[in-house]
């Protein structure tokens, strides 16, 4: 990914939410870049006495990388595999942030690298790992920050290394990361590779997103009750949100789960009106004024037809065109595929072309999309095609249900006068 299309922390500022959403658990107002500052804020790393999995279960922590899998269940599964195989585990901190709509992890790491590393070290202790891999985009600012942070920490028996991963969308998928670490091939291995049992070096492997590990570090230190002091009963704690697109102040904000969407958008100076892409490139289009009052949480977003996904919100300008944006994203997703599985390798270019020709007035493309989307869904080794299908289906629903006039304009005039696309795309 180039810096032009993928701004680093220098160009992405952190905005504190106004009350009542103000929190600074992961993003302290004063960055705790150095180890001494980090220890002064959080306290020194304590040896864990076990029970991390139970604490995570009690805290209800869901993974923050996109899939939202319960972190406690992953920890239990890897710990059980270690007991079964008698092999030490490996913990991989996924700091790649491969979705170009997301900037939260790079901001988190630029502000609190040691919190993420603490989380990986605590998880390693809990599951019985002797190695921690911090996986970040090769030659990225994140990579440099992590390497400097690791060099600052006192040496222990635990091996902590930073590994550069190719800047490709699909390379940060969990099984692709494991495959890359094992063989240099950063393509998803899919369900054939049970990484919790036979991952890096054939050992039980825990792969968790950077934000997930930072939350884990805080839960381990302060406990699930402290964690649940903010958020909703079903989903306690805070969450990082990347806000971009046509907003006055794009940036990253930390809000409690359940904060009204309008308050989250207000952090970026944006009103809750118009259309937005929620959850990343594999996300959903949603009309903001209809959901302004719903809480930002995995469950509430899903119930409203959205998705938390990678935790990004990209707002379209008032005259933006989600059909054009979707076609462009689908071409990117087709290009980004690993070219391993037929339904993805052939299906994604087909639906990308369908969406493009629909925008140019090809009425038959509607039927082709309706036929092809369910055929492609669920038939890859990883969920990459499913994400593209979900996005395309969401665009079709938005166009036919909420924007029939705009769709008619495309069908009759072969296009629309929308301004340049705003959804950021990096290198495929």
């Amino acid at each position: 990914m180039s810096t032009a299309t993928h701004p680093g922390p220098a160009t992405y500022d952190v905005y504190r939410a106004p009350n009542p959403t103000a929190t600074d658990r992961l993003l302290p107002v004063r960055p705790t870049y150095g180890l001494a500052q980090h220890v002064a804020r959080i306290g020194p790393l304590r040896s864990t006495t076990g029970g991390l999995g139970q604490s995570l279960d009690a805290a209800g922590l869901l993974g923050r990388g996109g899939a939202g899998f319960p972190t406690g269940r992953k920890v239990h599964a890897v710990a059980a595999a270690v007991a079964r195989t008698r092999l030490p585990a490996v913990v991989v901190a996924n700091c790649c942030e491969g979705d170009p709509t997301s900037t939260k992890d790079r901001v988190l790491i630029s502000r609190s690298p040691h919190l993420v590393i603490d989380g990986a070290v605590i998880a390693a202790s809990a599951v019985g790992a002797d190695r921690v891999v911090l996986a970040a985009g090769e030659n990225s600012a994140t990579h440099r920050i992590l390497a400097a942070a690791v060099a600052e920490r006192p040496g222990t028996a635990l091996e902590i290394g930073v590994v550069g991963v190719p800047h490709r969308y699909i390379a940060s998928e969990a099984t692709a990361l494991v495959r890359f670490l094992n063989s240099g091939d950063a393509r998803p291995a899919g369900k054939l590779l049970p990484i919790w049992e036979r991952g890096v070096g054939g050992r039980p492997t825990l792969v968790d997103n950077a934000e997930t590990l930072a939350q884990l570090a805080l839960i381990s230190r302060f406990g699930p009750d402290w964690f649940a002091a903010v958020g909703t009963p079903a989903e306690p704690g805070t969450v990082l949100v990347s806000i971009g697109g046509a907003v006055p102040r794009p940036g990253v904000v930390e809000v409690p789960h359940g904060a009204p969407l309008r308050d989250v958008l207000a952090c970026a100076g944006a009103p809750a009106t118009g259309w937005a892409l929620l959850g990343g490139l594999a996300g959903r289009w949603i009309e903001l004024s209809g959901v302004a009052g719903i809480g930002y949480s995995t469950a509430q977003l899903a119930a409203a037809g959205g998705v938390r996904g990678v935790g990004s919100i990209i707002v379209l300008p008032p005259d933006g065109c989600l059909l054009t944006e979707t076609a462009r994203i689908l071409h990117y997703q087709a290009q980004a595929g690993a070219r391993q599985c037929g339904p993805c390798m052939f299906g994604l270019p087909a639906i990308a072309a369908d969406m493009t020709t629909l925008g140019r007035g090809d009425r038959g493309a509607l039927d082709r999309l309706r036929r092809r989307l369910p055929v492609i869904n669920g038939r890859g080794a990883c969920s990459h095609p499913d994400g593209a299908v979900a996005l395309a289906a969401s665009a079709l629903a938005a166009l036919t249900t909420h924007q029939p006039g705009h769709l008619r304009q495309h069908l009759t005039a072969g296009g629309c006068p929308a301004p340049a696309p705003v959804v950021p795309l990096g290198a495929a």
Partner: protein
Amino acid sequence: MSSRTLRVDPISCRAHGLCADELPEVIVLDEWGYPILPTGPLPPEWVRRAKSAAAACPVLALRIQNIP
């Protein structure tokens, strides 16, 4: 007895299509030649021919799995 289901390894599959020749009532091919498999348990009367379909795959991408 546990029931069986058909699974394809999508990475190995090269759209040879021989599985659909062996078991056209159950396996259909998509427009690019890749098999679309039924979800859920395979009716017992199809198990024998499903085994033939799996054996016919030149890259052994099709498998019959026991499901609990």
